[in-house]
């Protein structure tokens, strides 16, 4: 086996055998299995659903579930590595062929990869570490009518509640701003937006 694109580490021995078994599936069966896999990759939280669908597939096609799970594990190595390394569909196709999958099936999978990779990339970026992520912002503003020290005030205040994710917990931060501070804050945030857009 030549140099693979999706990983630098040696591939487990079982993978070749699994690819050989995959080649035994009909085009229709392979297409159904691929669809199943991509549905899971784009919604990685739906583990239960994935396992149920896999089990149904096994039953319908008269394949034992155990070996099927091993095959799936082997297949998933490629898209996971490809996502991490931003591989193109040609590279994904080449890797599957190098692993022993038939050209026809490798091309099919690579096509599906091309279609799904924007969604998958967005998911991976979304999982990237964020420090004290701002989750939500609530606000209210009003007029201070009076106080214990000043009978009539008539000044405008703005209150913000920022919901910040610290580790796995949410923390609420309350801040009050004067009107000039608000306009200054708005101005700065618009500058940030311009900056972010120039880098997108």
């Amino acid at each position: 086996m030549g140099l693979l694109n999706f990983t630098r580490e040696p591939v487990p021995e079982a993978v070749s055998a699994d690819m050989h078994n995959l080649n035994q599936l009909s085009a229709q069966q392979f297409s159904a299995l691929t669809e199943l896999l991509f549905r899971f990759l784009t919604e990685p939280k739906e583990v239960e659903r994935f396992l149920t669908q896999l089990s149904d597939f096994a039953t319908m096609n008269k394949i034992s579930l155990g070996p099927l799970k091993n095959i799936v594990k082997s297949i998933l190595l490629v898209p996971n590595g490809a996502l991490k390394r931003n591989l193109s569909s040609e590279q994904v196709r080449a890797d599957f062929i190098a692993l022993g999958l038939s050209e026809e099936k490798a091309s099919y999978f690579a096509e599906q990869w091309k279609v799904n990779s924007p969604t998958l990339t967005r998911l991976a970026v979304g999982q990237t570490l964020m420090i004290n992520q701002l989750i939500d912002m609530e606000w209210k503003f009003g007029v201070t009518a009076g106080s214990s020290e000043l009978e009539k005030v008539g000044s405008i205040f703005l209150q913000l509640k920022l919901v910040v994710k610290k580790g796995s917990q949410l923390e609420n931060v309350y801040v009050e701003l004067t009107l000039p501070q608000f306009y200054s804050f708005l101005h700065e945030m618009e500058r940030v937006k311009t900056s972010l857009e120039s880098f997108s």
Partner: protein
Amino acid sequence: MAALRDGDFAALQILLKAPSKDAVRQLCQECFSSPPAALGPLAQRACPGLAVSAEEAEQLVSALHNLTRHVVYRGLTAPEDILHLFPENFHQNLKNLLTKIILENISSWRNEAQASQISLPRLVDMDWRVDIKTSSDSIVRMAVPTCLLQLKIQEDAALCGNNPVVSALTVELSKETLDTMLEGLGRIRDQLSAVANK
């Protein structure tokens, strides 16, 4: 906020013993700025300068505090309004001096009152930077811009006295979050304009 009491004006006449007009001015400012709890120690400090008993000093300081705070509370700005507060038989020159001093200080005292008003923690400063994330454990190569925003927040001034506690909060915003935030801020601005134009 303390209300003017009858005995206050009698106590104010102790100021006639003050060494100079500047001493009176100084005392007025200190009495306004002092919270009620700190009036005792202030009276003790004022005692020697006025050559009065501790009790008389306390009454004076309390009266000045009440008078200055009352004027600020009612928002009196016209000399007539302030002169009107004094009883008929009050010493004329002292009345004029006190009115003059109060008028000189009224707007800075008003600002002081507003600044020390109770409020939620206040924003005192904000800084930001834009980073580009180039790599992570989930994707080896990427170019995702992100914003780090640092807000310096000061706790309620009334609780902290002279040592305000300022904490810094750094939050990270993705472009989507920033867009949503700007939408909200824009809506605030529109509503503020609507209120201002009424």
